[in-house]
């Protein structure tokens, strides 16, 4: 390539890259920007691109209990509920996923690979088809409209993947390390906790992140199981704006920003761990 065509090549490349970056970022940026706009800026045609001043009124309104537009939903309560569900189920999933992951990676028992395969396939059967029977099951157990019920449900949904991520990473840790610890008189559990787990920490973080993101974002099962205002989660709160046929997108923008924020933080600070699970769980060519 000569000098001119090389310049053209890089210019073209950068342009395509810019287009992709815009395509990925613009929708979320635009909604974020709306949260700082005033009613008149949002209702004018064309909509003002930049807000005159960064007003925080929409956020204040969401957090003030007298606000009518938030449908009297108590956002601090919603945020607390979502954190409770996501954190509690993450702890459960990592704990039981580690137990099972160790068994699948290290112990020999009849039906091992079949059971692991079955667990993974079960995760593919998700979506709307299970909404009705799950609703009936939770009602029968008396777990409808309760945060504990959702914690149990999300943990059950998240466990197979967490187990698999942890099991695959344990398989890569050399057995000799544990064996030498056991030679020195450590029990199996001691060697697991003292020797193996510290080495498997990245996988535990990956599993925890994936599960937290899924539990925080879940909408379908939360929407059928939660009825009262003090059990609702942030996704339900945000979705409730659908029914408000208004042009008051500053509230939608503010609520969406609150819902997206923890996920974005995990995504940007945990990038390394995030992609670990992703490509491991994807296809191998």
């Amino acid at each position, binding site marked *: 390539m000569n000098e001119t065509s090389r310049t053209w090549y890089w210019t073209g490349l950068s342009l395509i890259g810019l287009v992709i970056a815009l395509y990925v970022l613009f929708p979320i940026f635009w909604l974020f920007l709306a949260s700082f706009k005033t009613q008149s800026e949002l209702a004018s045609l064309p909509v003002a691109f930049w807000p005159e001043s960064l007003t925080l009124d929409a956020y204040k309104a969401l957090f003030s209990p007298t606000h009518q537009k938030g449908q009297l939903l108590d956002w601090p309560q919603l945020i607390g509920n979502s954190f409770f569900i996501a954190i509690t189920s993450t702890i459960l999933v990592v704990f039981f996923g580690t137990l099972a992951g160790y068994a699948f990676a290290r112990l020999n028992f009849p039906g091992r690979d079949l059971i692991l395969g079955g667990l993974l396939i079960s995760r593919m059967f998700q979506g709307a*088809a299970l*909404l009705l029977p799950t609703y009936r099951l939770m009602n029968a157990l008396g777990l409808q409209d309760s945060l504990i019920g959702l914690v149990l449900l999300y943990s059950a949904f998240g466990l197979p993947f967490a187990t698999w991520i942890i099991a695959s990473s344990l398989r890569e840790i050399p057995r000799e390390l544990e064996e030498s610890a056991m030679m020195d008189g450590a029990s199996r559990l001691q060697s697991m906790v003292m020797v193996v787990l510290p080495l498997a920490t990245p996988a535990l973080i990956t599993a925890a992140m994936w599960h937290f993101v899924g539990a925080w974002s879940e909408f379908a099962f939360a929407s059928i199981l939660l009825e009262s205002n003090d059990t609702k989660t942030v996704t339900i709160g945000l979705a409730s704006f659908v029914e408000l046929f208004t042009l008051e997108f500053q509230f939608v923008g503010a609520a969406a920003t609150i819902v997206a924020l923890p996920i974005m933080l995990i995504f940007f600070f945990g990038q390394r761990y995030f992609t670990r699970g992703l490509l491991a769980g994807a296809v*191998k060519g």
Partner: protein
Amino acid sequence: MQNDRLLAYFMILPVVAAVLAFVVGPTYNVGTLSLTQVVMGQERGFGTLGNFRALINDPVFLLVMKNTAIWIVGGTLACVSVGLAVGTFLAIDSKMTTGLRALILLPWVLPDVVTAMAWKWMLHGQVGIIGQTLTSTGLTDEPISFMGDPDLVMWMLVVVLVWRKMPLVALILCAAIRSVPDEQLEAARMDGATAFERFRFVVIPNIAFSLTAVTVISMIWITAEFALPWIMTGGGPANASQIMATYIYQQSFEFFNWGVASAMSVVNLVMLASIVGLYLYINRRSWASEGTR
């Protein structure tokens, strides 16, 4: 060794029990419910195909199936083709593409509800930025009602679906393209193959397996997707964007037609099962040591 075996079963018990209780149990339960006559939540007798008859006779049924076909087939093809294009671009070695590889996953991790709201706002009939841009650049004379037009709404959903699901497809294909042996590309270049020919005859055959697998996985994801279409359109306007998932939700929790809802759920599960079966068949060699989300 006997001890080890007991210990192992004890350790996997919670996972197995959870999946049996909350996935396998409900699946079986919806199957039996679909064969039961249900009136307003009261079961009135098992062993009837009445629910499936009622489903097929539902005037909306054909429309739902048509929309679901657009959603799954159209959505999968769009995700894979856009994903292949973007993945090919991301496979180029440069600082910029490395940064983009990290950034591009953002739509994939954002909550469905946030995605739905962001696009509702952009596609809004009066104040949506997309419509306004089209009008101000003179491409259209009057604002288009993207979500209100029965002929457009399904395709708009596919556009949003691509934004959400394409990034992972692109990354998987990018990884596959980067693992194509350099010697083969070099040999093709020596033989005078153009860039397109190298892509067509060297890259594509090398990534054929990934391409097939990612297509089937996308189908599984899209079949299971519910929150995005539900929040964006709720199946409207006038059922124009009603797909299986939204129809099941509406029949279950708005109309309380549990018979029809469970029959549709079974149809949906059978569809999922056949796609999963296809995936297992493709992966039959590596299945023993492989898994997927």
